[in-house]
């Protein structure tokens, strides 16, 4: 596209680097911003800068948070003996939207995959084990991708928890979760959280 202005060209370039934004959509967004008053645009960029500069990772569950400890972890009405283990922040949001879960979370930040250079120490597994012991957790729900790497991660964590009086459960299979969690509709995901099964009884695929 030939732009009359280098200023526009550069902004379009920045926008089009966002996921699922092509050059055309980027141009449309930029045109919209141009039509806005200066302080409106400043509000917009300030929001982004402020967020980026102040956003924290929750010291307990590794969810994104405004403060040192996130609002879910701080919420005293949530059941503190149940932890749902997920790969990413996106999974937390997907499960929260179902309204069917009232425990805490633990965001691993990935699954074990030596092929991609991700070892057991590169994700928050030890932090999970420490947390379980320290907080008197009785149930751990594994909501990881139904991939070989997801399975290995569940297998490994349950190995580390062996001998402890902890109920390990997984979401019922046949429902996409983990990396696909966000694409599953709320109803199905909600159901699979309610109908979770003890780990080990869910092995045959």
């Amino acid at each position, binding site marked *: 596209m030939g732009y009359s202005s280098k200023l526009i060209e550069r902004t379009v370039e920045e926008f089009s680097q966002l996921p699922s934004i092509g050059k055309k959509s980027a141009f449309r967004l930029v045109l919209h911003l141009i039509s806005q008053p200066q302080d409106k645009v400043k509000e917009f960029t300030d929001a982004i800068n402020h967020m980026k500069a102040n956003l924290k990772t929750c010291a307990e569950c590794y969810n994104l948070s405004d403060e040192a400890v996130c609002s879910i972890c701080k919420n005293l009405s949530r059941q503190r003996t149940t932890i749902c283990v997920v790969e990413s922040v996106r999974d937390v949001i997907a499960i929260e939207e179902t309204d069917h879960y009232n425990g805490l979370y633990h965001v691993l930040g990935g699954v074990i995959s030596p092929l991609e250079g991700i*070892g057991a120490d590169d994700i928050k597994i030890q932090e999970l084990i420490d947390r379980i012991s320290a907080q008197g957790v009785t149930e751990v729900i594994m909501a990881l991708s139904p991939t070989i790497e997801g399975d*290995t991660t569940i*297998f490994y964590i349950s*190995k580390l928890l062996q001998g402890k009086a902890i109920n390990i459960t997984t979401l019922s299979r046949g429902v996409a979760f983990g990396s696909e969690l966000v694409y599953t509709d709320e109803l199905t995901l909600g159901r699979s959280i309610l109908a979770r099964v003890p780990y080990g009884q869910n092995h045959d695929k």
Partner: protein
Amino acid sequence: MLLQSIKLTQFKNYSATQLQFGERTILFTGNNGAGKTNLLDAIYMLSLGKSRYIPRDSKLIIHGEDFFRIEGKYQHLSATDLVVIKYPKGGKKEILLNAKKRERISDHVGAIPLVMIGPRDIQLFFEGSADRRKFIDAGICQYDKAYLHHLITYNRLLLQRNSYLKSIKSTGLNEALLSSYDQQLLEPAEFIKKVREQFIQDFSLLFMEAYKSISGDREAVSCDYRSQLLTYDFATALIEARQKDMILQRTTVGIHKDDIIFKMNGQVLKQFGSEGQMKSFLISLKLAMKEKIKAETGKTPILLIDDIFAKLDADRVRNLLTYIHHYDDTQIFITDTDADRVSSILKDSSITHEVYYIDENSPRLIHENNSNR
């Protein structure tokens, strides 16, 4: 299965070609490089989802174009199946069965069973065990989805375990993680071993029968399954091999070390067979595979024979073609540079067939009906 028609668009050297097939025996002839094998490759792809010869799909598109498409119309009993494969350059390959998109390419494998014999297959007797495992896996996967699934799982775990073994040098051994891989490998390994063991038992009988019919020879032939897991408990073997695995940084025990030993009169084939005997042996293996797939799926696989009749005496070729034609309802596609060689054998044996001459300059097909009367 009967392939009734095929339509190629910008695939290899075919910009737009459509062919109808009315017979069970079809011969593609023409000079080398005219595109005979490309036709077989298209038929192969409609069944197995990938080219037999070229691993990268982008190389299958005719030069200068940006997609290819293959379409095949099949008949099985009274039903017809339409398979379409599309590949846009830089995009994702799609397979559709009766207009319904397959989620994964592997989901399609087995829908249109097929067995191919090509000149390179003779390597089965010389190369490492990987080729022989691939031979049996390629057959079993066409009818046993659980096997295919366990095989994919096993191979992925093995890849991860080997990667992990390589990383131990810098990160130190995490006993719990390594044994997680070990324990996860057990179930798929046990499953695969059991299926392979049973497979070879059933397959051996079909194989001996096929060899007798087409070779006319009286050699005693056999194939035996070898696996470390037949004599060792896999879990124990993994622990015993651990030190060695860590030094070599790869997994040294498991079903990825399985092998099949081909024998003739009690001797290992590669050391004693003549070229003719080996080709008969190879063809018999493939025919036995076809029978096994047919027994399991109730569908007769399509048979592709790519350029293997050179240096094979006329008697063996005749035995093979009459055996297949009169034995069952298999549809065979044959390529041969020597138009007369196969054609005259077919005529002599009263086998109705079609011959397509493929012109070198323009890959147009000249249909010649050679049915016997």
